[in-house]
């Protein structure tokens, strides 16, 4: 039985309010511009209120399902350290993980009822051979707008995908209001170079 093996899957994970949906939209648009079929899926609603957010992006010749099954995701882009752990079952040891250094405490940790797990990077580096740790807020601050953290992470992602740089720039230009385009492009490049 031939499953759809030529389809690539990227999973974005993080916390409501981190700009995950915008970032995954951009990837999808880039793939569309690159002439591929593409689909994405996420759940709105309750998740916006500070809960976990995930977004699946899939692309290839012909994509049926907008969500990937466990064990087939090629790249996990995690906007928050702890959230990385929640979705490891979507990956294989050959998958790439891009992880933001940021820590956002869940309520139980704020209340002092639970511990924010330590050694997250060590844990995942033991299983996955490609783990890229990024300080996205650093890029964003240097780019001049703290809200460009998500674009910085896209920059990192872009360095693992064989897509023309001009397509990324074109889509980024179309995706943000005029006055924040420069900062977003800067953050993107800083991520890409990091």
């Amino acid at each position, binding site marked *: 039985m031939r499953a759809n093996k030529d389809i690539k899957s990227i999973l974005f994970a993080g916390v409501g309010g981190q700009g995950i949906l915008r970032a995954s939209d951009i990837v999808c648009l880039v793939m569309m511009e690159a002439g591929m079929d593409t689909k994405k899926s996420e759940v709105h609603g309750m998740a916006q209120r500070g809960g976990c957010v995930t977004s699946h992006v899939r692309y290839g010749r012909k994509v049926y399902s907008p969500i990937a099954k466990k064990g087939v995701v090629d790249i996990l882009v995690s906007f928050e350290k702890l959230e990385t752990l929640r979705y490891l079952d979507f990956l294989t040891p050959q998958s790439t993980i891009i992880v933001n250094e940021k820590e956002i405490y869940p309520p139980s940790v*704020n209340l002092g009822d639970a511990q924010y*797990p330590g050694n997250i990077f060590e844990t995942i580096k033991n299983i996955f051979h490609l783990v890229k740790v990024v300080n996205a807020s650093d890029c964003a601050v240097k780019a001049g707008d703290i809200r460009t953290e998500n674009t910085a992470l896209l920059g990192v992602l872009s360095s693992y995908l064989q897509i023309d740089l001009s397509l990324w720039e074109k889509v980024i230009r179309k995706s943000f209001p005029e006055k924040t385009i420069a900062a977003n492009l800067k953050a993107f490049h800083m991520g890409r170079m990091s």
Partner: protein
Amino acid sequence: MKSLMSGNEAIARGAYEHGVRFASGYPGTPSTEIIETFAVYDGVYAEWSPNEKVALEVGIGAALAGAKVLVTMKHVGVNVAADPLFTVSYTGTNGALVIITADDPSLHSSQNEQDNRNYAKFAKIPMLEPADSQEAKEYIKLAFDISEEFDTPVFFRTTTRVSHSKSVVALEKPKSIGDPTSIQFNTAKYVMVPMNARVRRLEVEKKLQKLKEFADNFSENKIEMNDPEVGIITAGMSYNYAKDIFPDYSYLKLGMVYPMPEKLIRTFASKVKKLYVIEELDPFIEEQVKAMGIHIIGKEVFPYTNEFDPGVIESSLKGEKTRALRLADLAIPPRPPNLCPGCPHRGLFYVLGKLKAFVAGDIGCYTLAFMKPLEGLHSCICMGASIGMAHGMSKALRGKAKGKVVGVIGDSTFIHSGITPLLNMSYNKSDAVIVICDNRTTAMTGMQEHPATGYTLQGEKTKEINFTELAAALGIESVHVIDPYDLKSTRTVLQEELLKSGPSVVISRRACVLFKRREKDERKPLKVNADTCIGCKTCVSLGCPPISWKKFDDEGAMERKKRSKKQKGVAFIDDSLCTGCTVCQQVCKVGAIIER
């Protein structure tokens, strides 16, 4: 031209391309963006109605005048609209009427998981179901054509995954159909008294027979013959999941899930060796296929609950678990949704939680207050239920209810279905207290306008309903307005009202922190003075995201001074999140929370 669109955007676009210029609805995840997208197209009329029943009745009126009408709601909205729904299939629709029901398998943002395909059968209305955005755009046009051709309302079912996934859509030029409206009198068809309805009842059955024949030839009920060993009957998003895993099996994909194409199903069944039906939630297709005397495997192997994904389909069909990477014993703290920093609901529910009353709750952001640490809400059934329930509970408890029963309802929810039960409270001499959490918007579903915000869907100024006057007109004599950022007066007013006899209404008014027209106030983030903090965790018990509590042995807190032997840590406020609402400052007993 190609565009990346969500299913909801594609529905709006398809309707517009097809000449539809009229839409009504009430917000509800996952349906909300359809009307929001439609409303900005040129030359359309679109409205948020106060609830789904009104939205459908508005739609029926417009359709009888000859318009092509789109009515949108989430799955539970159809329950509210069910009364007109079951009879509009009798009257027919003159122009055209398509009703969107956006179902929510897995209850991502709903109170139940009902499968609204059952409504199609129950109300005798045909139903289409697309699998992605391109299909959503094509099928919505077909739905309008069927409505016109058969003079019947048509259901259009989506699920969360279809509504909110995005995929590539080919745009077409919108067509203009001129003005199709006029007044048409036809009492035999539109006055559903028994004498007329009995006649129309027969018409409905005749129509359904014709629709069955239509279904057998409908272009979107498609057989894809591949490997004849396994045949799969499916519809909607499940088709995509199945194709992802089993691209080589044979398929019968149903674009129309009611009525079903019996001949086509028999043909397909005769061509394959083993027949499966893959459908989320109820065995809707399965039972009908089985009733045809055809052997088919469905819920024997597939789950009844929750949405599917490619993995679920693979493991159910193969009868084995998908192998997935496991991390041994990692405790991952959960991250449930929470009220936002500075949310006005927080202060109100902090006070309610301390009153030890039963708080009959309702649906909206404030429902989240049931969770730890606020725990200030004790029931949630459906929109509007809080008021009737508080009244019923108070009556049943008699004397024991004194000071102990409160109903809490959001402003949009009150408009949706709170007015009638409030009238009931004054009529039937209730003693309960009702709190309207008036955050000036429909926050849960993404900030929609409603009659008490004073603005229309398009953002135009309109008559603003005044809750104080409305409550008074309904016969409520005791009506108070409070500011939930002011804990002391909130507590005082609630305590006083709870002790009074007779019904009362408290309006807790403060705009949502995400609200677009919120007045600019000069609030600054607060901080904890670590030298005064006694580590008592009272501020932490507000559950406000910027406030955390750090144990002394945690890094950084070590050097800080202990105020007492027992003190184990200090509170901390993240200034990048704090909105400066001051609620934590008011609960701090030692004045340790101060301005930066």
